């Protein structure tokens, strides 16, 4: 095949590749969550910066469960972690969740497929703030699965979440 034709083919395929690699629009507001690592869709320097509006566009889910640090049953709203990872084309074994206070926990991505793990932005109808456990809180459906009522899952409830790194 002559070189010239190859070049033409490459030019034709280029927009498709670009579209696949970067379907994300740039965030309009301040980013609430930054996702980096092994993801297909990025919008800023090999990372995906997501503002409140972009996160709100993900399918909404509700979850009622008790936690190990609060009283009674709380109602959480947010999106499923696996929906986010799918949207970003994430592939890997673990997700390192990093909080504002530099708390870093590696969570097996299998968790998000085995359970409906929620990234909550409201608790009992009120938006989570950085002064409480916001802006985002990883919540496991603790009451629905007895095996999740275990300290080995409790440490994966990362609050003040602001970064994810897929490995």
């Amino acid at each position: 095949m002559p070189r010239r034709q190859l070049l033409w083919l490459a030019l034709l395929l280029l927009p498709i590749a670009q579209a696949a690699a970067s379907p994300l629009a740039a965030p309009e507001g301040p980013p609430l969550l930054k996702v980096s690592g092994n993801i297909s869709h990025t919008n800023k320097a090999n990372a995906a910066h997501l503002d409140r509006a972009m996160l709100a566009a993900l399918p909404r889910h509700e979850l009622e469960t008790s936690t190990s640090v609060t009283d009674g049953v709380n109602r959480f709203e947010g999106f499923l972690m696996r929906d986010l990872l799918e949207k970003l084309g994430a592939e890997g074994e673990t997700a390192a969740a990093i909080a504002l206070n530099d708390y870093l926990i590696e969570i097996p991505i299998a968790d998000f497929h085995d359970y409906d793990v929620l990234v909550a932005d409201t608790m009992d109808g009120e938006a989570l703030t950085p002064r409480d456990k916001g802006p985002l809180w990883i919540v496991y459906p603790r009451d629905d699965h007895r095996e999740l009522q275990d300290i080995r899952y409790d440490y994966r409830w990362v609050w003040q979440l602001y970064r994810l790194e897929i490995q």
Partner: protein
Amino acid sequence: MSSGRPAYVLPGVAILAFVAFLSFALFRLFLIEEDMRDNVDENMLWVTTQAQVASHRFEQAVSRQALGHPHDSPSLRLDVLFSRLMLMDEGPQRRYLRRVDLEAPLDDVLARLEAIDALMQPPAEGVAERARAIQRELDPLMTGLNRIATGVMKEEWEATGARLDRYHASLLQVIAAAVGILICGLLLTSLLIHALRQRRTAQRDLMAHRDHLEEEVERHIGRYRQTAEALARSLKREKGVSEFYRSFAGMVSHQFRTPLAVIDSGLQRLIRRHDDMPPAQRLERYHRLREAVAQMTRLVESSLTAARLDGDQVESRPAACSLTDLVAQACRLQREAHGEARLQVSEPQAPLEAWCDRSLVEQILANLLSNALKYSPAAEPVRVQLGAEGARVYCRIEDHGIGIPDEELPRLFERFFRSSNARGISGLGLGLNIARHLARLQGGDVTVSSVEGEGTTFTLWLPAATGRNQDVEPS
């Protein structure tokens, strides 16, 4: 039933104890499992420490801002500190601190936090001044947090120690229960083995008893069988005897009638013609009458002998006798009684000693010799031959008479058997039977060989006296 009750007491108690120990152990283990699940408290030290770290980071950010570092953001650090302290204000954490008497320091810390937040809100008159004001509140806050951390640490270590003590005590109890279970199990096992062994022993005893019974029954049956057989034998003998006497009576009455009739008619004739008869003829009649009487006498004698043999009345008293002498005497008697000169005795070269009863042998010889003379023509001689063969001696008597058919030879020695060609000659059929019987009584025998029409040879066999004590002469 009362004897069976104690046997069930021990196993019953053992089983009850087994169940009790097992239930207790399971209950204890269940409690431990519950206790281990309850892990809320273990979080508290981490929560407090993180609050302390957050307070230090906040202080650091405030100081750096005061020193002119533009990138540090005290408000973010305050948010984080807020978050940590709000967490301590939540239900479970606050209840924990209340329980360990640390609620007052917490309230103080929260009040200081509000004051710091108020200092952060309005725009400050000067960064350094604000930092000093914040520092005045932050120092006691950090002291309070430190106090809480120490208290929580102490509480958690105490709780852990108490929990370990509890586990220790519970596990000791479980171990004790397990030992109890083990003992009960061993007891039950030994009881089971004992019972099995007892059953096996009882079974073995039962089998032995049964075998013994079988032997006993067998022995009794044997005895009864012997008795029955003895009875059957004696009954058979009795039957034989009575049979014999019936036949004997028939024979005797028939055989006795002939000589009696001869005697009676002879005497009548002598009476009637006494005077007409010449003396020589009369004398001849008397002789014939005597012969008839002698025949009757012989008949009676042989019948008696047969009867005695049947009743086992005849005994042999053997002693060493000269067979040569016995035969010579028997021949002489025959010659004297019948006036016969036909007997030709061939003398043996050496003397023949037999081990026998003299009187019994005399009877046998008399029978055999008279038979030979009776069943052979008056012109023919009768040869008598003596000899020895092995440990036996013999006397062979050979006639040239009518002989005996082959098919009748096997029955010749049967009682009352008479050869078909001996019909015309008087006889009972007892002589040969008696002769063989008497010979066998002494350990000898009588055998026969015959050719019909040519003659018969009878042989008397007797044990030789050689080697026996010849001095022992029976009384």
